[in-house]
């Protein structure tokens, strides 16, 4: 739960992704419950029928249609003009939003480290499948240590952009508060197209997560939410008379840890998570709550595949 004095900061790809995991990730692709249109022709089927080789349907010719798509075989048999319709292959936008507020920099193992690894793994899958990848942050510190509302690296495509992704992820500095709603507003305004959006946070947001998530939903994105909690947040192992200091807003809470208080804390946490789950379920947001001790390969290869994000 408490903030570590010197948390682990990965500096290169190998520290974010195990090579054996990379091999397994190469076989995966991002999926969506919706087939979404992209701007560029990619390796992904779009609902828009287009020019791919995969036949989709026929329709009657109307004036102005491209004559190259007339099915001449049917015209020979039926003496009527029908157009052959093909499923057009389009690229997929994957937008990963990482909460970089100071609260993510807590726990052992660090919640933020898991976020970095998860973003890197999903980003790799996306790049490997020629999808368009955007990674945005909520909060965080810039190079000078000044709190930011949001930052992003946009429109990465192809494996060659993997170093850019890694560089971006490793230079992220968690800190400051979590202007969640404001950051979500900016992300929703600035994002382009439609696709899959993954929001990774601990969702311990004092101003509330409702407005922010609602804004992200508005863009028609297939939204996934990953809630990362430290094991120490799930099972506090603290004791004595404590002055708890909020790492984001320096709010102080004086507590004397007793068995009733611990019981109450767990009840509060469970209620909080249940409310988040209900919020997501009502809005078709896929929520997965994981402890930060979860190995990233288990999270990606097991949890997210079961949730239908990867195939």
């Amino acid at each position, binding site marked *: *739960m*408490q*903030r570590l004095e010197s948390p682990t900061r990965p500096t290169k790809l190998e520290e974010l992704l195990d090579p054996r995991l990379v091999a397994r990730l190469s076989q995966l692709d991002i999926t969506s419950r919706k087939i979404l249109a992209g701007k560029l022709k990619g390796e992904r089927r779009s609902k828009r029928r287009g020019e791919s080789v995969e036949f989709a349907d026929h329709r009657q010719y109307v004036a102005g249609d491209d004559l190259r798509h007339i099915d001449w075989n049917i015209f020979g048999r039926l003496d009527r003009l029908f157009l052959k319709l093909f499923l057009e292959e389009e690229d997929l936008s994957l937008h990963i939003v990482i909460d970089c507020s*100071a*609260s*993510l920099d*807590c*726990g052992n193992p660090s*919640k933020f480290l898991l976020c970095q690894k998860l973003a890197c793994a999903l980003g790799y899958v996306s790049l490997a499948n020629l999808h368009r990848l955007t990674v945005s942050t909520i909060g965080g510190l810039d190079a000078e240590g000044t709190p930011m509302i949001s930052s992003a690296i946009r429109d990465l495509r192809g494996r060659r952009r993997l170093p850019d992704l890694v560089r971006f992820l490793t230079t992220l500095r968690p800190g400051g508060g979590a202007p969640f709603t404001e950051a979500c507003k900016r992300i929703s305004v600035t994002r382009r197209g439609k696709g899959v959006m993954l929001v990774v946070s*601990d969702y*311990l*947001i*004092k101003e509330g997560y409702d407005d922010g998530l609602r804004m992200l939903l508005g863009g028609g994105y297939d939204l996934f939410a990953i809630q990362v909690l*430290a094991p120490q*947040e799930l099972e506090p*192992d*603290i*004791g*004595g*008379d*404590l*002055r*708890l*200091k*909020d*790492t*984001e807003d320096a*709010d*102080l*809470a*004086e*507590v*004397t*840890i*007793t068995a*009733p*208080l611990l019981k*109450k*804390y767990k*009840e*509060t*946490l469970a209620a*909080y998570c249940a409310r988040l789950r209900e919020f997501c379920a009502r809005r078709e947001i896929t929520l997965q709550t994981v402890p930060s001790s979860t190995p990233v390969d288990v999270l990606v290869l097991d949890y997210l595949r079961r949730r239908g994000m990867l195939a």
Partner: protein
Amino acid sequence: MTFLTWQTAAVAGAIAIPSLVILYFLKLRRRDMEISSTLLWRKAIEDLQANAPFQRLRNNILLILQLLALCAGLFALAQPQFNATMLSGQRHIIMIDRSASMRSTDGAPVSSPEISRLQDAKNKALALVNSLAEPGFFGSDGDQAMVIAFDTQSDILQPFTNNKTELRRAIEGITPTDARTTFADAFKLAKAHLPKRLHLDDKGDGVKRQDEQYDGSVAIQLYSDGRLPDLDQVRLQNDITQRDELTYHVIGDKDSWNIGIVSMRADRDFDDASKATVFVSLQSSSTKPRAVDVQLSVEGNVVGVQRVEIAAAARSKVAIKLESATVEEDVITPETRGVIFQIQRAEGAIVTARIIPDKPAPNERGDVLATDDIGYLSLPPARRLAVAAITDGNLWLRLSLEGMRLARPAQFMSTSEGQAFLGSKEAEEFDVIVLDRWIPTITDDKGASSPGLPPGRFLVFGATPPPPFGLDDLGPGKQGVALSWKRDHPVMRGVQMEDLSFTDSRAMAIARSSPVVSLAEGPSGPIIAESSDLTRRAIYVTFNPLASNWPLKTSSLVFLAKSLDYLGRDAMDTQSLTAQPGSTLTQRLPRGVGSVSLTPPDRSRPITLTQQPSGEVVYGPLRDVGIYTLAWTGPAGGLDTPVNNQVRRAVSVNLADPAESDVTPRTVLQTASRVVTAQQEGASGGIQRLWPYLLLAALAVLLVEWWFYNRKVAI
């Protein structure tokens, strides 16, 4: 339960408890910890209201534990105690009986390891010392105590002090003795150290008034088995202003029993002095019939063992009236039995009788007192008597003496020769001198002459010297017969006096503080009497035998033989060679001996004694039973045995006290003025101080708090 210094504790509590609570508010130092979000914690503690001022302390186990520890400490400061009717500043006189009966090994229950009564008494006295109030913080003096140990002697081992270390050292230093108990002297000694009533001239007008602040009361703590034969001489103060509080801590088990040797004597046969008869008297305080072996040894060699069965001691209940109630006490009347051994030994010897009790059954106590299981006797060498008679003519006396077996024929002389004879050295060669109707003249230190007896042993017929050694002659007496006589006296044993009648007698009276003891009484006073002091012994027959029918009776011959034997044995009497522990050894040695030494029974370093001008050596008190051997160079007396260049005389010291051998503890003490019952068992610890336990409890609570604190703050 009372509190000795409750004011101190109240003041301290009024300061300390609020201070602790306030300090706890101030000192509630919370450890800072940075966490991801206080969101959930705030919601959690909202219900618990953890920040309300007093609710902050709610369920605060550390504060509760600290308050508990503080309360225990404050409670200890008040010096609570159980069974404490006495106030601080009390004076205690701890009197511990160290007599022979306190050697009994029933100081602990049967199931526990054996300890003596004395050890039990010491333990209980130490418990009392431990419970004495310490001097308080605000000037109270605390309890004071003094320690007296007593047997026949009383010793103050520690005067009044509140120093517990000194008191403990004094009590632990008490060792058991084989002596008898004399409580009255010890009580007088204790009383002598009580604070005296003060009369002050506090107004300066020359009138001394009683000090109103005076508190002369004192608590006497008596640790004894109650075998105190002289209790009737003890008078406890019962005044309102000064009442002696005697707390009797009874020591010993009422079911204990003992079989002991209460007397031992040896008599040589009058006709054959090489034969001796040893009489051993046993006493049993067991309420069951018991059988023991009595073994007799002469100079360490066993010469006889006899199986003796002793009937059960009688148990009865005696009602004793107290000030407010009547209590019943079990009284056990011991049973006695005698054993007789015949031995053949002309030489002097140490004779030892030993009781060998049967092994007790499991879970049953055996004979608890070993001190009286052995008896010693110094048997002097066999010797016949040498007798001289000073008479102006007495046919009965002459014929009687000539017919007796003596060392040599009795020597007769007239009264005119007798005066010179008694002043000569020749007289010392005779064991007994018979005076017939004549008293010699002696010269005292101032040169005045008067009728009297010189040092020696005399049988006097028809005359007596004046008091104090003799009797008061009141003039002519009545003719008559013997009215009563002491049948158990060695002289009178077997002497038939019923048919005696006399016509010429004197009216006699025994002067006050005279050593004279009447053996037979006639119509005008004693007709036969005995008198003795350190240098003389005499038996007087106050009537004229020739003016009576006595010479015609065999009883006169029996009396003559017994008297000569009794007086003659005085020179070689075993009785003079015996003593009791606690008494002083006094032996008259032949004149002119040099370098007298005394070897005690434990054969430790001999003690050098100095012979006094009267010829006596004195040593005492005798602490232990056994044989004390006097040795010197020079002439030997009739009791003595020459060994190499030395002469030796053995004196046997035996407990020989029925009161000490009766080990049944008394639960009720009847003094001259009051009856005191034993303190109830369980309350015998006296005052039970609680403050050490409270301090321990406080320490334990602090330890629990420390453990709890560490457990709580562990991450």
